[in-house]
């Protein structure tokens, strides 16, 4: 069992014990511990269960590569599943629970899967559960789902208590990795006067060298690190960040760095994570190397750990994984672990070395220290259940049939060699070379990831570049399986991917079944798809695959390295954008008034517009009816500020608008307004609105609320890219004005009450004219236009005066019962008049002619945008569906989107149809349902009765009528 050593531990502060809980049990660690170190120090070697077989799992590694030791952390608003204990800094009160077991970590029912392992080889799902058909969804899949998954889902109704943010930084050189290589690179770049950011994922600097007591430039690594860091900190052009991981290298030098600002001090008033979005001229990946496990039977038992991790625990945290630790290796580095354990007083009964007669300096040191080296030997099998009890040895070069010796121990430290961390090199397409001597992939300097100038923009250095620094070491010997000729039963107990339970036998089966591409093997077996993304398992797996296919490893190649390097919180990805600032909310100058006056909101793009203003106890439907009745009977106000207002001006403005609108704008007289349509080049309607000619060279074009920015960009596109010699300026004045529609028979009286210098009389200011002047004390531009069929003025005043103007209108209108109305009343009233609405009658497939708007499509103009498109056969066909009014015979309201079915079926067995409803409302004015729709040859069929679908699946009959239901003669608006 693991335990805390009495002395040592370079990172812990024994004077600051910290209490934490694991599965409810209170344990004690020290300041400076990781959670993993604290668990091991407290003797907790069993920390979780594996994915598929629910096998007992212990801590394997000491850093980001850890596959097993994941826990649920925190509670309530701070609960987080799958937290990696090896990178979690201990704090007082930390609460952790183990995962993926029921009912308990020690006794897990799911572990029967492990007993049935023979029935669950790679890909077994694809071969099973095929019959009976419905069983997959209802019986098998629920079981598969329940037993898979790892951590518990956070509670759905609680909200994350933490905040997150992001930061944009720019630099010449970004150095990822704070080991000797990274610090050296940062120092060099800084010396050249570069702007440098150097980041280290861990809390501590120095990487491996400080643990291993190496010397750098003639001084102990720790001192060197401190000195270099001091210099870097002092340099204003250098930014030094620990607890910050380079998560992904993206195109053109964009690097995401994930800073864990406050994970180690939860509750602090700080952002929990900060996502750095760094734009770097060059990226130096000094990300070190990761040790590989060895594949021997039982290598997944709690207590079997990476040799360097064991060393980390001993040196950094004064924790030993056991009292008797067997070391097994194929290289010299693991001898450092043996020596470190020995120095700490831990028994190392044997160093099992697959090599015959290894002789490096470290080997000699170990021998000199009296440690036994069993060379040419292998671990045949690890004994134990939830903990290691011993190892069986056999000849490395055997099939493992004969057990040479059994050695009692409670932990195993293994090393299969090292693999450079080439992720950051690879994210953007950097290619790799196979290094025979080290048996690893390293960056191929001739094929780097290319930046925007076509040059390589990532460099690897140090161990990440394959420079492991052990110059006087004996050569390592590639070992992909132990013993070399292990039989099936052993291979079926050799774990490659301990989290996802992928074994050597699984990869071999995949190869046998033809899943020969490494990508197929990965997907068939799930090798490397777990939360550690195969940091430990991938190289071993593809070596096994290569062997099974009888091809060299480089021919097999690797799977694709994808960001992030280790998982990053979704909270950090969303950053500050949540709640009120999740998305911009656009507000008109009267927004606050609407809010205060009970508006029920409707999102319109990023705006929010009042749908209606329900009063106490009133339903939305009632409110809408009340608003309409008031407008039709007296007067009402609409906030129309969201409408687009584009100033189009210049000598060629008229010519330009003739190209943009389907109708003729050049003939419009100053002082007048005209309704216009815009189409895209396919001929489909894209926007509509009223154009006012301000003077000879100047037009004010109104667009729909959603259209303002789109149409502005559309205009600029044509002016800049097609007709660049035309003299036209466009200025977007949408937000300059608050625009208010004063609508109803009493509209004129209300405005006249305000006073001012505009003659509002019918004669002086006829329909479709506009005037500029003063209304009361307000500077106003008044348009006599109507979307409701009533006497109506739309008035633009400077936005800053919008609220005051609104107030003045409310006050002036009080005697007429003045009230605001919302978008729904607007819609119903326009439908009563048979006016189309972009987005209702149009949907991107409708041309003006479909809507009976032929009158607004110029026959005279030789060209306008959309004209060519409208000439295509499908557009001119007499069989198009065209706009009509629809009146149900029973007065009911037609359903939204209802179609008019025909008896027959088409070739694909679908019911034929002859029309559809585009807008449908209850009209309080007429006391019945009214609708508009597109009907096959509709206008030719006036008076005909056709049936439409109802919501409940029935049919209702409706008569085809003129779309104008109200005041067809226009007597109400032209007063």
């Amino acid at each position: 069992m693991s335990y805390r050593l009495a002395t040592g531990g370079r990172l812990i502060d024994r004077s600051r014990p910290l209490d934490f809980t694991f599965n409810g049990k209170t344990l004690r660690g020290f300041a400076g511990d990781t959670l993993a170190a604290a668990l091991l120090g407290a003797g907790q070697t069993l920390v979780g269960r594996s994915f598929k077989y629910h096998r007992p799992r212990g801590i394997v590694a000491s850093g980001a590569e850890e596959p097993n030791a994941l826990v649920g952390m925190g509670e309530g608003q701070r609960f987080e599943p799958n937290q990696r204990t090896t990178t979690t800094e201990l704090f007082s009160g930390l609460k952790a629970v183990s995962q993926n077991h029921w009912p308990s970590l020690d006794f897990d029912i799911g572990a029967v899967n492990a007993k049935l392992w023979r029935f669950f080889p790679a890909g077994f799902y694809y071969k099973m559960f095929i019959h009976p058909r419905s069983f997959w969804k209802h019986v098998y899949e629920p079981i598969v789902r329940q037993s898979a998954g790892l951590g518990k889902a956070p509670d759905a109704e609680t909200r994350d208590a933490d905040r997150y943010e992001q930061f944009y930084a720019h630099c010449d050189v970004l150095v990822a990795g704070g080991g000797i290589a990274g610090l050296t690179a940062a120092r060099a770049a800084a010396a050249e006067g570069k702007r440098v950011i150097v980041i280290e994922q861990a809390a501590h600097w120095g990487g491996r060298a400080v643990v291993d007591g190496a010397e750098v430039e003639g001084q102990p690594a720790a001192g060197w690190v401190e000195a270099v860091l001091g210099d870097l900190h002092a340099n204003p052009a250098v930014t030094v960040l620990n607890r910050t991981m380079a998560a992904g290298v993206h195109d053109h030098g964009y690097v995401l760095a994930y800073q864990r600002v406050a994970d180690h001090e939860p509750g602090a008033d700080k952002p929990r994570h900060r996502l750095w979005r760094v734009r770097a001229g060059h990226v130096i990946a000094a990300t070190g190397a990761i040790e590989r496990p060895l594949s021997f039977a039982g290598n997944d038992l709690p207590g079997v750990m990476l040799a360097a991790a064991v060393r980390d625990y001993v040196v950094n945290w004064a924790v030993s994984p056991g009292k008797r630790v067997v070391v097994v290796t194929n290289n010299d580095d693991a001898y450092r672990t043996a020596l470190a354990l020995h120095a700490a007083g831990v028994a190392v009964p044997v160093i099992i070395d697959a090599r015959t007669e290894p002789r490096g300096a470290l080997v000699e040191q170990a021998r000199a220290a009296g440690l036994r080296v069993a060379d040419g030997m292998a671990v045949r099998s690890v004994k134990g259940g939830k903990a290691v009890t011993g190892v069986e040895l056999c000849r490395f070069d055997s099939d493992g049939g004969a057990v040479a010796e059994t050695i009692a121990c409670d932990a195993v430290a293994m090393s299969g060699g090292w693999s450079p961390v080439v992720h950051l090199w690879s994210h953007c397409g950097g290619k790799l070379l196979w290094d025979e001597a080290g048996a690893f992939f390293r960056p191929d300097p001739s094929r780097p990831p290319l930046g925007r100038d076509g040059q390589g923009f990532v460099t690897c250095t140090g161990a990440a570049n394959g420079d492991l620094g052990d110059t006087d070491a004996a050569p390592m010997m590639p070992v992909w399986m132990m013993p070399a000729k292990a039989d099936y039963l052993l291979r079926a107990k050799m774990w490659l991917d301990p989290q996802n339970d992928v074994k050597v036998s699984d990869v071999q089966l995949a190869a046998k079944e033809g899943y020969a591409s490494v990508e197929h093997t990965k997907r068939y077996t799930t090798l490397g798809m777990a939360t550690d993304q195969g940091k430990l398992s991938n190289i071993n797996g593809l070596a096994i695959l290569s062997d099974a296919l009888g091809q060299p490893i480089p021919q097999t190649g690797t799977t694709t390295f994808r960001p992030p390097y280790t998982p990053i919180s979704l909270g950090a990805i969303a950053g500050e954008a949540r709640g009120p600032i999740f998305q911009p909310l656009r507000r008109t100058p009267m927004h606050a008034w609407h809010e205060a006056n009970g508006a029920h909101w409707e999102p319109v793009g990023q705006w929010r517009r009042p749908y209606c203003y329900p009063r106490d106890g009133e339903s939305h439907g009632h409110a809408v009816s009340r608003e309409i009745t008031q407008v039709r009977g007296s007067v009402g106000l609409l906030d129309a500020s969201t409408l687009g207002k584009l100033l189009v001006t210049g000598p060629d403005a008229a010519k330009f608008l003739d190209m943009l609108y389907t109708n003729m704008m050049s003939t419009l007289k100053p002082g007048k307004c005209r309704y216009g349509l815009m189409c895209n080049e396919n001929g489909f309607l894209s926007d509509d609105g009223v154009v006012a000619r301000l003077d000879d060279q100047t037009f004010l074009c109104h667009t729909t609320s959603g259209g303002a920015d789109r149409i502005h960009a559309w205009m600029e596109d044509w002016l800049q890219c097609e007709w660049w010699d035309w003299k036209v300026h466009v200025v977007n004045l949408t937000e300059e004005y608050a625009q208010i529609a004063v609508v109803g028979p009493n509209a004129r009286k209300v405005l006249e009450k305000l006073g001012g210098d505009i003659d509002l009389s019918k004669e002086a200011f006829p329909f479709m004219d506009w005037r500029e002047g003063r209304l009361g004390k307000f500077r106003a531009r008044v348009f006599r236009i109507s979307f409701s069929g009533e006497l109506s003025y739309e008035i633009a005043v400077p936005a800053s005066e919008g609220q005051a103007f609104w107030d003045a209108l409310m006050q002036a209108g009080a005697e007429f019962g003045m009230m605001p109305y919302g978008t729904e009343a607007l819609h119903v009233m326009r439908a009563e008049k048979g006016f189309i609405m972009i987005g209702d009658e149009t949907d991107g497939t409708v041309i003006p002619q479909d809507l009976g708007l032929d009158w607004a499509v110029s026959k005279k103009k030789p060209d306008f945008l959309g004209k060519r498109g409208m000439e295509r056969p499908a557009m001119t066909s007499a069989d198009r569906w065209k706009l009509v009014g629809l009146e149900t015979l029973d007065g009911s309201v037609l359903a939204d989107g209802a179609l008019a079915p025909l008896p027959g079926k088409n070739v694909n067995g679908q019911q034929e149809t002859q029309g559809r409803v585009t807008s449908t409302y209850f009209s309080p004015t007429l006391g019945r349902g009214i609708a508009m729709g597109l009907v096959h040859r509709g206008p030719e069929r006036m008076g005909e009765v056709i049936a439409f679908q109802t919501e409940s699946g029935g049919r209702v009959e409706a008569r085809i009528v003129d779309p104008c239901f109200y005041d067809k003669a226009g007597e109400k608006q032209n007063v």
Partner: protein
Amino acid sequence: MLLLTCPCCGVTAEETEFANGGEAHLKRFGPGSSDADYEAYMFNRKNPRGVHFERWRHAYGCGKWFLMARDTMTLEVYGAYPAQTTEPPAEIVAKIKARRPEWEGYK
């Protein structure tokens, strides 16, 4: 995440400040054009694997459109130039030729 330099204002900014407008140097075919010309103008695209001439707008910056040559396989940017041109400038073509000898050229 591209990093682009706007030739109109000189700002080098990330992709999020720009908007792409598709293939450059399309010749508009309006009323009176043949079906084939109109179809080609409206829909058919080179969509090349390799050198691509395209339109960009500095939407969150100076608002101007410009044209750019970029490689769709490597994302290398060969250069940007004004929108008010009907074919790529010679120096950009030369630069691409130098970088991509196998490129068949601008047609």
